[in-house]
């Protein structure tokens, strides 16, 4: 199904996801709007618990009890992935057109199946490949992700590989059916720095070569800077600012984004002590009315009592903050 060039690949509108817990309903995601275009890498950054993982898991239909998608829509190539019709469509595209890699490579692979099986089963299910053909493709995939001696690797089990190699296998699985969107949910958090750099470099190169759209979830601004074209900053279940990566890093508009950048060491600038953002992210069981960041925001005013919505601040930049829009207005 060919998609008109300007229509985004993935559209998420007013997505709301709640978690029923003993101590009350946790509003993990409180109305997220996102788009991902062709061949574009969108970085989603935010402290842990900001709802970034939940959003992408909602896309992949991995939200299970106690979580549930309360409202909102997720469309892939214009067609909804939610609701009765959506489920069958999701099952067709999931793992084929949209794929995902997870944070902890140690537990993401099935310990009792060989690497070969875990790659070929995707190929045989989605593309109906024969056994030999799938194995040949699997070897290509392992070479694609820079794994040495791929034939031997196919017979090995996950416990025989290092963390980095297992993540590469995950990537190989994700790329098996030449997906159009790869979602990476904090792919390098569990790895040490050297491996992290190699994996990111690999992802960037693959994204370039395969004209792949990528959603990179992370809490590490360094990873975002290195990888993404556009960046969305999430806070307390909402997107507070989205824009081109360079712009965001040069001129952060939303106070939270500014605080984040101030709190992150920058190799190219020598700054005195880093300034942490005071206070703690709000309890999402009963989120404060209005702007969630108000309690920690220096520029907070009375208008912050009303909850701001994501409005266009300038070309390619949207912000969800009254003070910011006033500044732009003034």
């Amino acid at each position, binding site marked *: 199904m060919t998609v008109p060039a300007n229509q985004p690949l993935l559209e998420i509108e007013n997505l709301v996801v709640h978690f029923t*817990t003993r*101590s009350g309903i946790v509003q993990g995601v409180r109305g997220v709007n996102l788009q991902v275009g062709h061949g574009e890498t969108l970085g989603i950054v935010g402290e842990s618990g900001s709802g970034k993982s939940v959003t992408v898991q909602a896309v992949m239909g*991995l939200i299970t009890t*106690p*979580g549930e998608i309360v409202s909102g829509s997720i469309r892939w190539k214009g067609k909804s992935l939610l609701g009765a019709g959506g489920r069958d469509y999701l099952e067709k595209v999931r793992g084929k057109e949209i794929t995902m890699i997870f944070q902890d490579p140690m537990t993401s692979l099935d*310990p009792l199946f060989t690497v070969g099986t875990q790659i070929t089963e995707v190929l045989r299910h989605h593309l109906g490949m024969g056994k030999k053909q799938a194995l040949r493709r699997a070897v290509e995939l392992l070479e694609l992700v820079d794994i040495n001696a791929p034939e031997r690797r196919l017979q090995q089990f996950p416990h025989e590989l290092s963390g980095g190699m297992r993540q590469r296998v995950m990537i190989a699985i994700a790329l098996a059916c030449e997906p159009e969107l790869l979602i990476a949910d904090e792919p390098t958090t569990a790895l040490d720095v050297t491996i992290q750099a190699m994996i990111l470099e690999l992802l960037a190169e693959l994204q370039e070569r395969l004209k792949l759209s990528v959603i990179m979830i992370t809490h590490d601004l360094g990873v975002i800077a290195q990888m993404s074209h556009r960046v969305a900053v999430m806070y307390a279940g909402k997107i507070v600012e989205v824009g081109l990566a360079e712009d965001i890093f040069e001129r952060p508009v939303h106070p939270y984004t500014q605080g984040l950048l101030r709190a992150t060491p920058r190799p190219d600038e020598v700054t005195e002590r880093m300034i942490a953002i005071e206070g703690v992210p709000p309890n999402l*069981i009963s989120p404060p009315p209005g702007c969630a960041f108000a309690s920690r925001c220096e520029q907070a005013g009375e208008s912050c009592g009303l909850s701001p919505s994501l409005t266009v601040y300038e070309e390619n930049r949207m912000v969800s903050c009254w003070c910011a829009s006033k500044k732009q207005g003034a």
Partner: protein
Amino acid sequence: MDAKQGAIESGGDHGGGRLKNLFLELWRDKTGFIGMAMIAALLFMAVAAPLIAPHSPTAQNLRARLKAPVWDENGSWNHILGTDNLGRDVLSRVIHGSRVSLMVGASVVLIAGAFGTVLGLLAGYRGGRTDNFIMRWIDTQVAFPGLLIALIILAVIGPSMITVILVLSFNGWMVYGRMTRGAVLSVRQTAYVEAAEVVGCSGTRVVFRHILPNLTSPLLTLAILEFARIVLAEAALSFLGMGIQPPATSWGLDVASGKNYLFRAWWLVTFPGIAISLTVLAINLVASWMRLVSDPQEREKQFARQMRARRKRGPVVQEASAP
């Protein structure tokens, strides 16, 4: 749920709050509560048997033999659950029988469970010669006829409840051993066990702090299954004259001696049988509750499912495709 309540909840437990918290937890999970209440009732019944039993379990009256329960046409309120082959009151015998059955069931599960689990852990964790030795010991003992062991212990100690407990424990630990060893072998390879060792935990610490805790659910389940089997096994031994001696009685013994009356007096077997089933059910409810409490992730999922089931009548909510 106002915010304050939320805060206490997430504020973590501290001292006195722990017990209150546990009870609160129990109250919220109805099945666990029912299970605990049933067990409390059973224990009370066992302890206060002489007080609450309408008749003495050994008072016999051959004339009033094999009377049907009260709801039968010739039943009487004097013997609510009817009388047995010697005219003794079935209800009183079930109440008194709880003592032996609960005692034997619990102690055998504990002894056999502990012994088997420790050896299983040792075999699985140490591997090599220890594993071989313990596994061969298990094979030998499984092949050895249980009844013969019973005869030996009987010859030494003579028939009593202790004999039954020893015999059943001696014949019953192997399954725990095997189950634990199997589980330890697979867990042995996981990262966190290697990590614990690297950090320098001593062998026993690794085994008991790291490996044992996540064996709880299969072991707990196994303990429940074994409890039911043991209570019935006690019957076979006692009926053959190796276990408890009159006037003491047990559920299993009543089931066994009621066996031949199945066609004539169905209630002799049925009521002790029901007592055994209820006990097993109660223990299972509590055990599954304990498993929930010890596994927060599962607990939340369970709670959410209940809430959604209740809200099913409310606005239909789209549910994700995964289970």
